[in-house]
């Protein structure tokens, strides 16, 4: 996302486009990264329901992976996964 210069800012503290949070990457301060073992995943989508962000990528009702540009590494998906398919791995150790 290209950030506007000060002269390009709208008057007032406003965001004029709806639904643009996707463009704003907020996943840079994660300490632990959820890593999915797709061989274990049963596509129950508990992770998708519980994710406090919208960082679980789902396509055609199947869990496709994690949106690391927005995931903060809270670990809830890993906790709720009934088949332990998501493990939390320390960033930098990969």
């Amino acid at each position, binding site marked *: 996302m290209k950030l506007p210069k*000060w*002269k390009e800012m709208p008057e*007032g*503290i*406003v*965001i004029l486009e*709806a639904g643009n949070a996707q463009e704003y990457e907020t996943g840079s301060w994660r300490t632990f990264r959820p890593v999915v073992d797709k061989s274990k995943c049963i596509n129950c989508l508990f992770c998708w329901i519980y994710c406090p962000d919208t960082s679980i990528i789902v396509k055609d009702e199947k869990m496709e992976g994690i949106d690391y540009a927005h995931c903060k590494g809270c670990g809830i998906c890993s906790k709720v996964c009934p088949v332990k398919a998501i493990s939390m791995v320390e960033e930098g150790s990969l």
Partner: protein
Amino acid sequence: MKTKNLIALEGNQAIALAMKQINPDVVAAYPITPQTEIVQVFSEYVANGEVHTEFVTVESEHSALSACIGASAAGARTMTATSSQGLALMWEMLYIASGARLPIVMTVVNRALSSPINIHCDHSDAMGARDSGWVQLWSETAQEAYDNLIQAIRIAESVNLPVMVNMDGFITSHAEEVIEPLDDEEVKHFVGEYRPLRSLLDIEHPFTVGPLALQDSYFEFKRSQAEAYKRVIPVLKRVADEFSKITGRKYDLFETYNLDDAEIGLVVLNSTAGTAKEVIDVLRGEGKKVGLLKPRLFRPLPVEELREALSKLKVIGVMDRADTFGGFGGPLFTDIRSILYDVPNRPIVTDYIYGLGGRDVTTEQIFKVFENLENIYNTGKVESLVSYVGVRE
């Protein structure tokens, strides 16, 4: 020339009348001495159906300004009024209103801040809010406060910034004065219909107001806000010109009195300017070249114009009705002195802190200030750059 419609009103009543004639969409206010009468009289207009205003009764000034911010973001023409502790309680909301660029107009009836608790006039309330991003207009008389409030609507809505109109507690707010109001229709026409830049009620154009802006965007928002104040001066002048066409009353960034050929000048805000004019008349009668500059617009500070008006003087006395504890003189003094720093042969500028907590400001005190300034003029020596006037020594 139409017949003058002159009526006797207290300053607060004049403000309430202006609010009635402006007929704002929303007023959220909480009573506090010496502003109470504004809210009281205005609420009678509301109860009598003389205005269409949605009057929001709240439990504090923090809520009053919060409600105003919500209403203004929704696109409503919004007004309020307060004093002293009330303004202090609004403090965090003041910055939110200006940052969000909401053109709320508020009368501030200037009163000292606690402690010790005191209900009388000084300027510590508004001076505490001087960096909050609100445009500040100051008024010597009830007539000026009335006129400023009507013009403030146009200024606020032209630049999308909140404006506070100041007048002295009790001295102006409770003294009865003959004023010449405009007709209701004239005010209605002058303020016009408010067309907000954007409105939360406009569901065709949804937007987010007040989002988080961290290290990557906060600075750009604030830099953009800082630029907006440059538009205030030309807008204020244009609005004042239009206002003088219908009333004959001329307003500018500041008023000068016998300043053109003066060598010694006084800079003072609000009602004390009236007392100072009396003193200047006497001193002029004695052949002394003394004059006055009374700022009307204090924020944004009209730097170039003030420098132009004051640079030819030899000695300037600034009178501050607020102290900056632990600082270097009053807030008006530091601004005026700083403005003149780059002037060749810059005038000597000294500060006189006066009238705190409603201490009566007499002509004797102002004569004393001029005596001190004349002494500096004659000797070139300054005993004290910052001194206190009218306090028991």
